[in-house]
């Protein structure tokens, strides 16, 4: 257990050791503010809601999360520090989980920094607290899903940029497959299956403020699936 915590701590600290983390957080916040105030016509519609902000989370995270995860394994493999990390008296899965938790904490910090927006709507009007909480939970789950994907992709390469691009594409595909246009172009028998697999369709209800256990189970399974792949990729050095 302490191994997971120490990896997570080290990774989390490493984020803030480089200016990139601050740049990304700033960009994310600026983007969120812009979406909140202008894209949603906040000043015109007269509703105290964060709905538009949450609706856009799967899109903003599409860039933001892979930027966070791209270096987490790629850099270690490029510099050779992975060999140090994986010869400590720890299991591979402990290292993977530690890295994932570090990324999740970083994401949580970014999300929490949008809390003043929630404060603003609470001050201006009378928002639906449940919807805000569900929205935040949903955002964290979407972020965690992208995180698990990005982390796995990062373990496949030594090149951060490659890791970033592939993660963005993979996350985008997972998000977009549930969109009606895509579904309409699929054979009928595939539609229910693909719609279930789509990240977008599972996010909609959360954005509306409904926490459905099926959605939570969906996210958690996807996260576990990619973390499992990650452990396998790390272990695959042993298979040759």
């Amino acid at each position, binding site marked *: 257990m302490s*191994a997971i915590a120490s990896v997570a701590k080290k990774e989390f600290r490493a984020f803030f*050791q480089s200016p990139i983390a601050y740049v990304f957080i700033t960009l994310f916040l600026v983007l969120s503010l812009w979406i909140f105030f202008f894209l949603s016509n906040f000043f015109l519609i007269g509703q105290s809601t964060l709905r538009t902000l949450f609706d856009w989370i799967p899109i903003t995270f599409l860039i933001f999360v892979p930027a966070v995860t791209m270096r987490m394994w790629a850099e270690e493999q490029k510099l*050779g520090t992975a*060999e140090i990390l994986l*010869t*400590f*008296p720890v*299991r591979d899965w402990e290292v993977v989980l530690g890295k994932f938790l570090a990324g999740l904490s970083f994401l949580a910090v970014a999300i929490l920094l949008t809390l003043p927006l929630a404060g603003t709507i609470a001050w201006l009007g009378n928002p639906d607290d449940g919807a805000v909480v569900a929205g935040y939970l949903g955002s964290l789950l979407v972020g965690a899903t992208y995180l698990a994907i990005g982390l796995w992709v990062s373990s496949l390469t030594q090149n951060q940029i490659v890791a970033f691009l592939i993660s963005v594409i993979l996350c985008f595909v997972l998000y977009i497959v549930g969109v009606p246009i895509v579904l309409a172009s699929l054979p009928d028998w595939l539609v229910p299956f693909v719609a279930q697999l789509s990240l977008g369709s599972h996010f909609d209800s959360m954005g509306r403020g409904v926490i459905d256990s099926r959605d939570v189970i969906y996210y958690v399974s996807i996260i576990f699936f990619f973390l499992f792949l990650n452990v396998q990729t790390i272990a695959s050095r042993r298979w040759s």
Partner: protein
Amino acid sequence: MIEVENLTKTYGPTVAVDGISFQIPKGEVVGFLGPNGAGKTTTMRILTCYLPADSGAARVAGYDTFTEPVEVRRRIGYLPESAPVYAELGIVEYLQFVAEIRGIPKSERESRIARAIERTALGPMIHKDIGQLSKGYRQRVGLAATLIHDPEVLVLDEPTTGLDPNQIIEIRQLIREIGREKTVILSTHILPEVEATCDRVLIINQGRIVASGTPAELTRAAEGKVVCRVGFRAEPAIVEPALRAAPGIEELLPLDTGTNGTCRYEISSREHDIAERVFHLAVGNGWTLNELHTERLSLEQVFTQLTLGDK
């Protein structure tokens, strides 16, 4: 302390390690010597449980590397090739992380870190990030990290590559010092390194151990040929036949002869006291000796012979 039996590891069609067996008793400093790609790094990776062997067994402090990797790693300090480091962390921060992940209790961490820093003489750099350090200091940070948990075994993969001569001497001294209490395995392709630091050498080539012994033993074993260069102030016409007739001299190669009554020869012999014999021969005949120089086959030549197979 370390027992390796019939270890084999292949990467696809390439055989990296081909049935290696050796034993290293506690407290010995052993050098893996061999050309690049000989299987040194692979052997070390198997010992540190980074990679599994295809067949054979390796035990460290009684624990099997395949079935009990975590126990093995607890007892090993490993510095991989080119001493990779987390450039973005500070020295103390990094050592703290290593102490933590190695499960050293909080109360002991500070003193252990201080001791590792002291042993590797990192004191003056303590406030810097690892990324700001020179190669030599980074290597020391890597070494300090391997010492934190006071391991029984140190595995150092080419610990002096990329350092300048002064740094090399410092690191070697450090390894010598550490080797007084710990079992150390280091790999290198630099020959003077094993002579300077190791109790025993395993020469590895193409995945096999081709020779093992102390540096002195290996040198002695190299056919025992002695080459001796000698110069006289005397007439070559007299000297040469006398030398040819002398016992023990196998080959006589005139280097320069004739002018102003001096001559020089290169003599090869299997007798290790050939220089003394030549001296007595000169004294007995009343020749003036103006040069006498013997050369033994160095470890370098042993190495070349074994790894290039020109013997």
